[in-house]
């Protein structure tokens, strides 16, 4: 964390206090997300959780990651989630059947995963401090250089993986369409499975 070599653990700086408080809010929002009985509320608490994470990234000088987090997760993933909920079932009020019988198994897995992650991060970065002289470590320029100089191969591998997923989605949606009645509606077979499915739904209405 910032300026950690001059400040001990027991005399935190303002940034550290802010980091802790935002962390608390994020953690609380995450808990509410998985425990609330109201489906849409869960999705909206997820927005608070993801936003809180973005603020934590900001406090750790990772500005680029923070905005990308907001753009992808809050702006797209949650919107997609809400879209799906509204299309299928989004009652106002409690849904008693929204709970799963696996909550203890889920809790166990979550605790183990959290413990493993914390252990790995603490063990790997225990003695690493962010160098605040020069360009901030998380700025767009530094991130871009690191990504395209040191990490090009994983980056390209990821792109191929995403492309494969995209092609797979198109194949699946086209197959589903061929199986259904060959009624010719105005729906566009867009380059994205979701787009075609959406157009179909709108046409059916």
């Amino acid at each position: 964390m910032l300026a950690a070599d001059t400040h001990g653990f027991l005399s935190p700086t303002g940034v550290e206090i802010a980091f802790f408080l935002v962390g608390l809010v994020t953690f609380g929002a995450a808990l509410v997300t998985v425990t609330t009985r109201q489906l849409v509320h869960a999705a909206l608490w997820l927005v608070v959780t993801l936003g809180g994470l973005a603020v934590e990234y900001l406090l750790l000088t990772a500005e680029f990651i923070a905005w990308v987090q907001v753009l992808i997760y809050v702006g797209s993933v949650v919107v997609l989630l809400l879209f799906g909920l509204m299309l299928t079932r989004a009652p106002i009020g409690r849904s008693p059947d929204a709970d799963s019988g696996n909550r203890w198994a889920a809790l166990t897995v979550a605790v183990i995963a959290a413990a493993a992650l914390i252990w790995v991060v603490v063990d790997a970065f225990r003695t690493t401090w962010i160098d605040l002289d020069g360009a901030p470590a998380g700025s767009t320029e530094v991130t871009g250089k690191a990504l395209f100089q040191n990490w090009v191969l994983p980056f390209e591998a990821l792109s191929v993986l995403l492309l494969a997923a995209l092609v797979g989605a198109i194949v699946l949606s086209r197959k589903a369409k061929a199986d259904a009645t060959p009624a010719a509606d105005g729906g566009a077979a867009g380059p994205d499975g979701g787009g075609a499915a959406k157009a179909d739904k709108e046409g059916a209405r």
Partner: protein
Amino acid sequence: MNDALDVTLRLLVVFVVFLTFPLLIGQTEHKVMAHMQGRLGPMYAGGFHGWAQLVADGVKFAQKEDVVPTGADRRIFQLAPAVALLPYLLVLLAIPIGPGEGAVGEVIDAGVFFVLAVMGVGVLGALMAGWASANKFSLLGGLRTAAQLLAYELPMLLAAASVAMAAGTVSLPGILDAFEWWWLPWQIVGAIVFFVAGLAELQRPPFDMPVADSEIIFGAYTEYTGLRFALFLLAEYAGIVVLCGLTTVLFLGGWHGPWGADGLGWVWTLLKTALLAFVVIWLRVTYPRLREDQLQKLSWTLLVPLALAQIALTGIVKVVIE
């Protein structure tokens, strides 16, 4: 200047712009639409050509009863207008209107990402409103809003990425510093894609399917009354200011102009923004509403390929000139 005072002043200026510019555009819309349709528009409020019409509208909205439907999810219903409106205020902070660090609310390193990310959050407000109203028309409006956002976010991002590639930076003042006049023809396709996708994200006609009044009353905002309804309207017009300002900064060179770029840069920014706002109004009067499947088709089969082609062109030119 004192730091705290400096920050306060900047925030104050941005806030005043946020409160006045949407009203200016709204009033212009009243008058321009009226004259394009052979009417006079508002003529009485305030005396001179009805200049105070929107002030009167605001007073009217403030007096109305604030109704929350019985079946609605109260808290989310009441929170939704704020979620729809506040992102545009934040975006205004990052738009530079003149050269140098003095003419922008706050210099943000990853400015392009910031503005697009925060603008996307605003749509959550419409989704929340649509769901929490406990009204089928509202829910349909919310659904259409989500579908529209998902379709048009991608071409908008790609078009903005093209400019960022050309400038070699994602900071908005940095993009303006790198701007040359010949970027205008070079990036023109990207500019049109960005502007059209932005219009769709704001749900302005001809992309106003989510609020299509002849089908679903007023979409997600059907159940709203009084000030909360006014806040949604304000969000729409603030969105126009933000979209026109962003298009100006990213594609039209912002404060660059044929002359007077040193002292009068902000005049150029405002002029270009106003011109674009006029185009937004013009489009509303000119084109009929697109059907939902036409909306999706336009985005996926036309705007996305065009944006990708623009990125390819940007890359090729960039490599050639280096």
